[in-house]
Structure formats: structure tokens, C-alpha cells
């Protein structure tokens, strides 16, 4: 039987914000059943046709895409699927400043479609994704003088890891294989120009032949380092305990043997004792923090109740704007004074809706649990109790408990 804290840990790590009744509904269920339920999440995505009728031109509100995504993350429905979309975005990075709204939106839907599906299919689609081709200069890369950016980052960051079994010559050869692709800035159409592709035999990863996209992907993903690299990144994101070389191998093998299906790997990660031990071992990134805090305040819409998109910008992390191709750093810098300042500066402007005031007992434990914290430190509970005693329940005491809960060290971690 799952304790409330076990269930809360699962929800925090495999979603964004815990809504107050979520945990109560789950306590007492078998934790392994809960994990399988999370993994079965079907998620939400739109097809290319769904974009029809939407405005994706220069007039589009600049913050439309990140704002829409924030609202998805804040939604009570946001589960493991949404979490995986966030993971893939910080893995297969693209910065919207380098492409168009339409192409960024399309890439986002591609990630949504494959977020819990198959790594190979996802990687294959992203390799010739318009936004990716823009971001990593695959757009217009000519066979005779190919741009190496996409080839390099695909091997180094996305698939294998730095110096993991490939050479600089492989980077150059890969660039030839990936040449010949164009993206139309106006329509977003991606097309292949056979005459501009390097169409002669190329030696890549020890094999000399004429390559196509499929054989390129096959060869990269057949590298011994590939599965462990990707599985290890997912371990860091979801579990975040130190990863031994053996465990990395083990996780890679799960991914390989399932023919790159993601769900068996998730199952291996989440049922493992490491996952339970990892409570509080990861720092919430700003976007994760904002989504969780919004859930605690029961906010579902950006730009209401004092919650404005610029507040997200103040945290220094904006969806679709990773600082570089390696994505956002994932460490404890996200709980530094910079963050506390940005959070308190803006989020203390939030109005606490009456529905929240009405539905939570004015005690530290109740309000902390309301924010998804079921195993707080004594220090934090004492601090809240003293603050409540000093403030008095009837003088915005619950508001104070709520503000302290989201600013608490526990809330800054996962």
C-alpha cells in the first residue's frame, strides 16, 4: 500500500503540480499499480491538421506557444506524458528564436506524439524536423560543403554522448549524409533536394557505403553507447540518483531490448528502489516550480489571478528558449537566491482564490500537504506554526502558510 508521501513523490516526479485531492484519492492503493497507471497515460497532442485556422505568422503573440504549454503543465491532467514532453524538449533542444512559430508548434506536436512511444521514431522525425533543421543549420546544408552543426550535436548531445565511440571524421561524414534538406520559411515545408545531397559513398562509423536517413539512424542507434546515453539522461531527469556504469548499461539494455519503446524503460526506472530513495534529491526547475505553485494556488490559466507570463520570464527559464543546444542545466542553481527573489517578487502577487481558503485547514501540516508535501522537515513545520501563531488565523493566516509552503525548501525540491 502506498503511503501518502510515496504517492505524492510519484505524482511530483511524473507530473508537474499536485492538486490537493490527487494524493488523498491515491493513498492506500498499491504503489506498483499506481506507477503502471502513470505509465499508461495517453497524453494529449494535436495533428498537423489541427493547426488549420490557427495563426502562425509574424503577428502571432510572441508568448503564445510557451504560455499555452505552461497551461498544459498547470492542468490537473498533466501527468507522465506531459513530463516526458518536457524531458524530450530539454533533450532534443530547439530554440524558437531560430525558427518560426509554426515549425516550433509542429515540433512540439511531434514530441507529444512520441513522448511515450518509441525513441527511434522520435529521433528519426526530429532529424528532418523543420525547427530542428533551422536551429542546427541543417536547412540548406549542401553536399559539397555541409554544415556540421546538426551532425555533431546529434551524435554528441542527443544520441551518444561526447567522444562516445565516434570521431571528428564521423561528424564530417554524418554532415554529408544529412545534407540536401531545405526548409521553406514561409510555408514551413521541409523538402529534400537530391542534387544538393552528397550522394557518393561515405565512411561513417566504420562503414563505407551510400547512406540514407534510415541507415544513418540505424547505424547511430546500433552504437553501444546510444541506449545507455538516452536511458541515463531519462534516469537523471526522473530518478536523479547517481548512476553507476552497471546500472546505465542495465537501463540501456531495457531500452534496446524493447526495440526503443519508452514505456518498458519507464517501468524499470519507476519500480526500482532508487526511485523511492530519490525523494528530495532533485531541484525543481523554474518551469516545474511555477506549474507546481500554480497547482497549489489552484490556478489553471496564465494571465489571471495576478499570474502573468512575465513572471515566468523573470525566473530565467522559458519553454522553447533553452540557453543553448545542451538544454537547461539540471542542478541546484534553480533554488538560489536569484530564484527566490524572482519567485517571491512576482508570485506573492497572486491572489489566493477563496476556493483554496475554503478547502484547507489552517494548520501547517494541512497546508503543506495541500501543496503536495507530506513529509516536511520539523524545521519547516515549526516555522509555519510560529508564523501562524504570530499572524493569527483570521488575519490572512492561511495565505501566509501557503506562501511559506511554496517558498519552503521542500517545495523547491522534488
Amino acid at each position: 500500500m502506498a503511503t501518502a508521501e510515496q504517492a505524492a513523490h510519484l505524482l511530483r516526479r511524473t507530473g508537474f503540480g499536485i492538486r490537493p485531492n490527487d494524493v488523498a484519492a491515491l493513498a492506500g492503493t498499491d504503489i506498483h499499480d499506481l506507477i503502471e497507471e502513470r505509465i499508461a497515460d495517453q497524453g494529449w497532442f494535436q495533428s498537423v491538421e489541427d493547426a488549420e485556422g490557427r495563426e502562425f505568422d509574424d503577428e502571432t503573440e510572441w508568448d503564445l506557444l510557451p504560455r499555452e504549454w505552461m497551461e498544459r503543465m498547470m492542468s490537473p491532467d498533466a501527468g507522465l506524458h506531459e513530463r516526458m514532453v518536457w524531458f524530450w524538449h530539454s533533450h532534443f533542444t530547439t530554440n524558437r528564436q531560430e525558427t518560426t512559430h509554426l515549425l516550433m508548434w509542429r515540433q512540439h506536436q511531434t514530441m507529444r506524439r512520441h513522448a511515450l512511444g518509441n525513441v527511434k521514431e522520435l529521433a528519426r522525425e526530429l532529424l528532418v524536423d523543420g525547427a530542428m533543421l533551422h536551429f542546427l543549420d541543417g536547412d540548406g546544408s549542401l553536399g559539397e560543403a555541409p554544415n556540421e552543426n546538426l551532425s555533431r550535436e546529434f551524435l554528441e548531445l542527443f544520441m551518444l554522448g561526447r567522444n562516445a565511440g565516434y570521431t571528428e571524421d564521423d561528424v564530417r561524414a554524418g554532415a554529408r549524409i544529412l545534407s540536401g534538406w531545405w526548409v521553406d520559411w514561409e510555408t514551413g515545408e521541409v523538402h529534400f533536394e537530391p542534387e544538393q545531397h552528397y550522394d557518393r559513398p561515405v565512411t561513417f562509423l566504420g562503414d563505407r557505403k551510400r547512406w540514407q536517413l534510415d541507415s544513418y539512424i540505424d547505424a547511430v542507434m546500433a552504437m553501444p553507447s546510444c541506449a545507455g546515453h538516452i536511458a541515463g539522461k531519462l534516469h537523471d531527469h526522473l530518478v536523479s540518483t547517481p548512476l553507476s556504469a552497471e546500472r546505465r548499461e542495465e537501463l540501456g539494455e531495457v531500452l534496446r531490448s524493447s526495440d526503443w519503446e519508452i514505456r518498458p524503460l519507464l517501468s524499470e526506472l519507476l519500480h526500482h528502489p532508487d526511485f523511492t530513495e530519490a525523494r528530495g534529491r532533485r531541484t525543481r526547475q523554474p518551469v516545474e516550480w511555477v506549474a507546481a505553485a500554480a497547482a497549489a494556488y489552484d490556478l489553471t490559466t496564465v494571465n489571471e489571478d495576478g499570474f502573468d507570463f512575465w513572471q515566468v520570464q523573470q525566473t530565467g527559464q522559458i519553454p522553447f528558449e533553452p540557453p543553448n543546444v545542451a538544454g537547461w542545466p539540471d542542478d541546484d542553481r534553480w533554488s538560489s537566491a536569484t530564484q527566490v527573489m524572482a519567485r517571491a517578487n512576482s508570485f506573492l502577487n497572486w491572489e489566493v482564490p477563496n476556493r483554496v481558503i475554503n478547502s484547507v485547514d489552517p494548520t501547517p501540516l494541512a497546508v503543506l500537504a495541500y501543496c503536495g508535501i507530506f513529509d516536511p522537515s520539523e524545521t519547516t513545520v515549526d516555522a509555519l506554526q510560529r508564523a501562524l501563531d504570530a499572524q493569527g488565523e483570521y488575519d490572512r493566516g492561511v495565505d501566509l502558510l501557503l506562501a511559506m509552503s511554496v517558498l519552503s525548501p521542500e517545495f523547491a525540491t522534488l
Partner: protein
Amino acid sequence: MTDHTPSWYPSNTPDDSSSQESPPSTALAPLEDPMHPPARPSRRKFLGFAAAGVATVGGASFALNPNGDALSLPGTLPGVSSDAPSNESPTTTRPLVASEDVAGRTLVVIELQGGNDGLATLVPRNSGVLYDRREGVHIPDEELLDFTDEYGWNPSLAGLSNHGIAALVGLGTTNNPDGSHFEMEKRWWAGRSSGADLPATGFFGRLCDQLVTDQPVTGVALGSGPSPSLRSDKAVTVGLADPESGWFLRNEDLWFQNLRRGMAAMSPDDGSGGGPLASARNGLSDTLAFADVLNEIDNERIRDAYPNGDLAFTLGVAAELIRQDAGLRVLHLSHGGFDTHSDQRGSHNYLLAQLGDAMGAFLSDLGSLGLAESTLVCTTSEFGRRVADNRGGTDHGAAGMAMLAGPVAAGVHGESPSLTRLDDDNLIATVDFEEYYATIAEKWFGIPSSEVLESAPAPIDGLITA
């Protein structure tokens, strides 16, 4: 505010702090009002720059002087430290500034956002090319403020007349320049002139990483929230969007007092635990510690000593922060609006007047606070603008210029870019901005450029005189 102090928080004013009783060991320690922590000993022992070798200033190094008379050398130049013991890193053989000399030095960066027109800021004299090609924006010789034989300042900068200013001309990227604000801002922020493999940290953030002390905050961005240029690995850098930032740290309402006390109580400095939870506790206590600094800002003094305007006020805040000697080493400010595609003369002159007046007041203020020799002021801008004008404005260009004040050799530095041999109508940079950054790192802070810039460029000699 002690009237409101609830009994469970012992008051901590100097008068009665000695009377506090220790709590029983089983209870939590008494909670200190984070707004009035015990005095922190100043760590910045300012070493006077004794007259050990006054720098020789080149013939072209005059103080900016609008009347052309009494060309003066900048007041007192601090000692040159090239004979001083160096703290060389294995990767550089250049002498660095001695570490005792750099203790307490502060850098103030003013980012001129939008791409400042260098040719209309520090104007080349007697240039037929400029009269011909940028008639709509060019400032005629007779209007210029005297500077050197080759250059005169835009008259809107008269506020800097009494200060020794160094100009670095031909400044840009020598590495595949780009016309996009986004692209060039990113390169300048990251300190990567080529734009390839941008690091996740910013150049000024990496400086802060090298300068970190046990004080809570090392870098601060004023006026625009967090600046990507201050992204750091280990140093704490804080963005204050406006003078109201940190309002929750100053609000005297009982609710906010209790919130602050609660934040302090949640982040005891008892070294307990480790990992992310401990880091999060540090984040809270660092924030509260920074509150002390914010609370010492004397707005009235700023209003008296500075002209009106956002930039002036923000520089006043900067002076107030530096004066407190609280560990801040890099302050970053933004002055926006330099994307002068149209009506340049009006808007650009206005922006430069704001800059000159604000900076002039700041430099005078630093002088009166005794901080003139420990504070370096410098400007950045993502690019300069085209040589040719375009219907009263100018389009995005390449090379521009930077201004420096403080312990600098007044005058023009760098090689003037050719006004006729152009790259796609753009000035070709003669100095890469990474060299400029290397100069700040090595000559001001004594940090080898290899520690903060991957290409480890050599610094420019003779620019910074401290």
C-alpha cells in the same frame, strides 16, 4: 518595526540584543529578525593605490573637454601593477594584477541595447565619407566635443566632460558577424564571439564565479531582471527588475514581517543535511541576507545626487550597493532604445544625453564616496550600425565602440576601422569583443582570460591603468 515584533521573535536591535536569553537547548534557537541581523564585518579592506608608479598616458589621452581648453589628464591614476607579483595560471604567461590590488574592485557594465551607433557616439573628424554617406545622421565637426585629433564626442555626452573617458573603437566580432539582435546579444552575453557552442553561463556570470566570496550575492542585474550575461555556475547573481524588486523584503506590513521571519526560520544556518534541500535553504538565507543590502539603499541621497531618469536612478542604486561593500563585484545595467532605424538624431542624442548625464553623476558620486579607483565602468552593445544612413536612421551594422571610465587611460584605444573598406556596408571589427572581455578579466580582476573565455585571448594593453 519592532513595535510589531511578535513575542516569539526576539527583537534584535543593538540596544536590547544583549538582553536576549538563550533558549532551552530543546527549543529552536531564537529567531533573528532577518531585517536586523548582527553587523557583518566588512570584508573589503580597500588597499589604497599608493603612488607606486603613476601610469603614463599616451599623448592622445585627454579628458573629454567640450571647450577644447585645459586639456587635462584624468585626475589620479592608480599604480600600474605590472611589477607586482602575479598570480599566473599555467595557461598564461602574462603578468596579472596582484590579488591584493583587485580585492574589492567592482565592475559596472552598462549594456546599450539595440545596437549603439558608434559613428554617432565617438565621431571621426573631417571625414568626407561620413558627410557623404550618412548625411542624415552625421554630426558635423564643429558640434563635436573635443577629444582627440581624430575623434570628437557627440555633444549630447557633455555630462561626461569632467571625467576621463577611454573609448575602444573598432569593437565587434572578428568572427562571422551577424545582423540579428538575438544572435549578437547571445554572443556578447555568453562571451563567445563566434556564436558556436555557446556556453550556458554568461561572461559576467563566469567572472562572478571567479570572484565569489562568502558574501551572499556576487553579481546583480539592475533594471531588467536577470541578465543572461550574469548566468553563473556557482556564484549567486540576482536580477532586480526595478527599484521595487525585493519589495517583499522591505514591506513593513506584519504579514510580510512574519513571512520573512518564516523564511529565516525555514533556512537555519546549522549546516544540517546536504544536497538539494540544503541548497534550497541557502537560497532562502542568501535572499534574506541580500535584503540587508537592499534596505541600506538611500533613495533620498540618489534623488539629490543624480539627475532624473531611469538610468540615472539605477546608477544611483548601483552606487548605493557598491558603497555598502557587501560582496557585489559585478553590476549590470541596461539602457535600451539604441535600435535607431529612423529619426536617429533625435532619439540617439536623447539616449546619449541620458547616458552622459547619468554616468557623469555616477562618476562624480563614486569620487565623493572614495570609490572612483575601485570601480570600473564600461559599456557593451550587440553591434554598431551601418556607415550609410537610411532615411534618417541607420540599420544594423557590425563593429561599434565601447566607453570605459574609472581607472582607465583616457583617449582612443584600438585601431580605427576603415570607413571605406567595408564588409557588406559594415565597419570591419579591428578588436574582437573577447579581447575586450579578456582585458576586463585580466587587467581589472586579475583573472586569466583562459579561466573565463574559451579562446583565451590576450588583453589589450594600456586601457585599464589600475
